[in-house]
């Protein structure tokens, strides 16, 4: 069957991104050494910025393309913009990080782009098959990215771990999709919704199992308890720029697909089926994440557990089943991207080749040694802790508002109490930075324009989105209108 050429203009951002990524592969094939690395970094930056610009041309539309295999709408656009912002920030960090760590040049940036391409596909489809293809495209890119520090044993281990467990999770997801297809004969989420509206109340056993497996598969990608075991090890072992990329991008993409699938098709089942399961998962995720984070001495592991906890907060808004307030999830994910990329950039800035300095002791006395990084890091941590007027507070505020509005008072209370626990370990880092004397001699810190720029962007974004969240919430609100 012929595909009308006109339809391709709606997926221009994806096409463009693929083009740039392929170009990067070419550069990697023909050029070696630092010059090629710098060139690919700059090409990658131009590519991601131009893709973001292109994205603005297709916003405000709502189309199904290619026999409903692909969807272009505001919801997807919001997520795509988030991914591209993440990509831009990570690329800027990598301009220096990849050079310092001597990570392969062309393929590194190309993989970053392919990963984002996968994420973009994941959030812009109503079709299980397309979602699955996106998920795999993203995952495979990240399996490789994790292992890029070939000489580092931890990096290789983390990649292998992520690959094995990821493969498991993917098969769960696929099995879930297959069972849903098997019980209903439908592979499209919108059709599934119509089917249920017609057959209510009706839930074949096989379908329920399928739905459970979907939750397992997505739960793995968003790192919710009890599918979170891989997170700390992988986050710790992966190159830090990739950790930031995973913690923000993969999580956002997984939530994007999860919300789309569940809010489109399975909302009629909310009351009986999945909310109860996810209610428990949310509480466990928050609590386990926060409590385990309390005892971490490595800052990357601490941030890993904190990212688990944050997934728990987001799940709180997710289970409310409120079609309007689900926008708080989108807002939170955007805010979360800035907080985490900022924090990981600070972590990167403090390390150098071969020596990462991620144990908390190396943060002692940072306030005096390097006030700029300490101040930025404090802002990221305070935002993660949800202290106003930073964006982290606005995010939490809307998430818990959603819970309260839907009547989940206890969940909201558990959530806020959890955030008090979280304050303890975020403050602990601040405490080391400002209250303690350095324990050992640490070399000069060279922030450099790349890291400094990213941190400043994140600080600005957090303050701006915290004080004036309106515009971003409106965008998020417009994005979720597809569910009503």
């Amino acid at each position, binding site marked *: 069957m012929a595909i009308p050429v006109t339809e391709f203009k709606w997926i221009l951002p994806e096409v463009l991104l693929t083009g740039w990524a392929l170009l990067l592969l070419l550069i990697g094939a023909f050029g070696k050494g630092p010059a090629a690395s710098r060139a690919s970094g700059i090409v990658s930056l131009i590519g991601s910025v131009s893709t973001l610009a292109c994205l603005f041309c297709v916003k405000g539309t709502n189309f199904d393309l290619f026999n409903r295999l692909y969807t272009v709408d505001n919801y997807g656009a919001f997520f795509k913009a988030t991914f591209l912002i993440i990509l831009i920030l990570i690329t800027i960090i990598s301009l220096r990080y990849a050079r310092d760590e001597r990570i392969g040049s062309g393929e590194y940036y190309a993989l970053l782009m392919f990963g984002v391409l996968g994420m973009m596909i994941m959030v812009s489809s109503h079709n299980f098959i397309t979602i699955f293809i996106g998920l795999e495209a993203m995952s495979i890119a990240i399996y490789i990215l994790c292992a890029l520090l070939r000489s580092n044993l931890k990096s290789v281990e983390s990649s292998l771990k992520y690959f094995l467990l990821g493969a498991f999770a993917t098969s769960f997801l696929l099995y879930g999709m297959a069972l849903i297809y098997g019980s209903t004969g439908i592979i499209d989420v919108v059709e599934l919704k119509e089917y249920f509206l017609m057959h209510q109340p009706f839930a074949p056993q096989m379908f329920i199992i399928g739905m459970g497996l979907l939750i397992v598969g997505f739960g793995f990608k968003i790192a919710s308890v009890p599918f979170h075991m891989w997170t700390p090890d992988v986050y710790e072992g992966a190159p830090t720029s990739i950790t930031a990329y995973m913690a923000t991008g993969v999580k956002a993409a997984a939530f994007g697909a999860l919300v789309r699938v569940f809010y489109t098709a399975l909302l009629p089942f909310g009351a009986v089926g999945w909310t109860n399961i996810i209610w428990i998962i949310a509480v466990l995720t928050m609590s386990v994440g926060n409590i385990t984070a309390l005892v971490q001495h490595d800052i990357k592991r601490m941030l890993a557990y904190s990212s688990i906890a944050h997934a728990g907060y987001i799940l709180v808004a997710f289970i409310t089943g409120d079609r309007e307030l689900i926008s708080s999830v989108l807002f939170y994910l955007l805010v979360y991207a800035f907080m985490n990329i900022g924090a990981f950039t600070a972590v990167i800035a403090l390390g150098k080749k071969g020596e990462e300095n991620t144990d908390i002791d190396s943060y002692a006395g940072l306030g005096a040694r390097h006030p700029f990084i300490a101040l930025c890091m404090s802002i990221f941590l305070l935002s993660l802790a949800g202290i106003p*007027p930073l964006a982290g*507070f606005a995010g939490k505020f809307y998430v818990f508002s959603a819970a*309260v509005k839907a009547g989940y008072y206890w969940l909201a209370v558990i959530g806020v*109490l959890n955030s*008090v626990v979280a304050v*303890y370990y975020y*403050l602990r880092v601040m405490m080391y930075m400002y209250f303690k004397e350095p324990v050992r001699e640490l070399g000069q810190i060279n922030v450099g324009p790349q890291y400094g720029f990213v941190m400043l962007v994140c600080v600005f974004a957090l303050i701006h989105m915290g004080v004036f969240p309106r515009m971003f919430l409106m965008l998020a609100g417009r994005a979720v209108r597809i569910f009503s």
Partner: protein
Amino acid sequence: MTVMSVPILTFLIFFPLLGAVILLFADRNKPLFIKVFTLVLSIVEFGVSLPLFFFFDDRAKGMQFVEKVPWFPEWGISYFVGIDGISLLLILLTTFLTVICVLCSWKAIEVRVKEYYITFLFLETAMIGTLCALDLVLFYIFWELMLIPMYLLIGIWGGPRRIYAAIKFFLFTMAGSVLMLIAIIALYFLNYRATGVYTFNVLDLYQASIPVVKQYWFFGAFALSFAIKVPMFPLHTWLPDAHTEAPTAGSVILAGVLLKMGTYGFLRFAIPLFPAAAYDAIPLISTLAVIGIIYGALVSMMQPDLKRLIAFSSVSHLGYVMLGMFAFNMQGAEGSIYQMLNHGISTGGLFLVVGMIYERRHTRMIADFGGLARVMPVFATFFMIITLSSIALPGTNGFVGEFLILLGAFKSNMWYGVLATTGVILGAAYMLWMFQRVMFGVVTKEENRKLKDLGKREVLILVTMVFFIILMGVYPKMFFSKMDTSVAQYLSFVKARNAQYRTVGQVPDASAMGKTTVQNLKN
């Protein structure tokens, strides 16, 4: 009603912040410049707050100097600030004490001077913002914002156990306030379901009809948050640690202003929003207040450390404030507000004098002193006056407040009055005993013989404190006249609302409320 068209409150809130931002770029190797800059800034701030006092229309009901700008209209969040007679005096206290604190840190702070003053200015912004905010979200933001600078003040410039104290302070207060956040959100949606309007405007929410059972929950969440801040017995345990470890200026501002945020929160939010629950909570809160009064006094008596002694005496004094507030009569309420100011001045003053001898001797143990009156006569005089004001000797500010509170307490329930009065006696006992051990007798320790008496800067600080102690003691009318109308209005409003909840079944109809009251409040 705006007396002046200048956005004076916004200026007051953000001027210190602006100063802090400018200081960020100052050269850290010029501490003198930083100190002078901050001092000038805080004096200007105090100067700007004075017109508030003189232009404040003491007969007008409702909020004055109101500014309202929509912030996030779809959610009903606005930048809404305004003051009445209650917040007016507390704002003046804040701007005044900030000047004092800058002065008293002059020599005490030697490390990271720049960061210190930045933190302090930041704190001032948060405090004044909290006192002005009339939008619940705005209030919560400022409320939480106060924690960070205080955490840093204790943690960086504090004593040996500062880290423990700082974290304890942060976690205790934060734990209380997050529950308040949930209550705020719940109240907001409750109001929306009843009226169809999204609003965080506290004056509008005063009119919300809340089922009494829900009021218990909401009041509980608000009261917990405020009670931790006050701090009421048995939630006070963070206070002695924080006070003892904080630098002098930190203790002064903590005692002087931050604790008042708790009591102010009761007056502005917890009680008028949930009057029925507040009335039902009278026995509980009054009992805890009386326990606090007596317990604080008894524990003070046993303290070997001067700062800890004053810290526990704060628990006792704040017990009076709570007792007066929950007497729900004019004497009690006015006495309670007056006592908030008194405590800021007297206890602030006590921390200052302790800070002064600590700078000289680097110890705060009572046992290390004795006979100081012979060595430092000027110091002894000031110390005496401040001690007497803390004991509430007639003629000093403390007397007026405590007397009114006891009147109010007797009027509402005799037994609370009787028990609270024993606290007065205990208070005199521990303060005078402390004073005697530190100042009188022969000089027991050799090191104390050569202590220098006060310098000009220190005399200046204490003279201003003593000036207010006497002024507020002999001419209280000047201050009462500013709050009379507001307090009367507050009380009649709370009483009327409570009566409504009792008579018109569970939930009063908002429209049945006297329209005049609504009008007055919105004014």
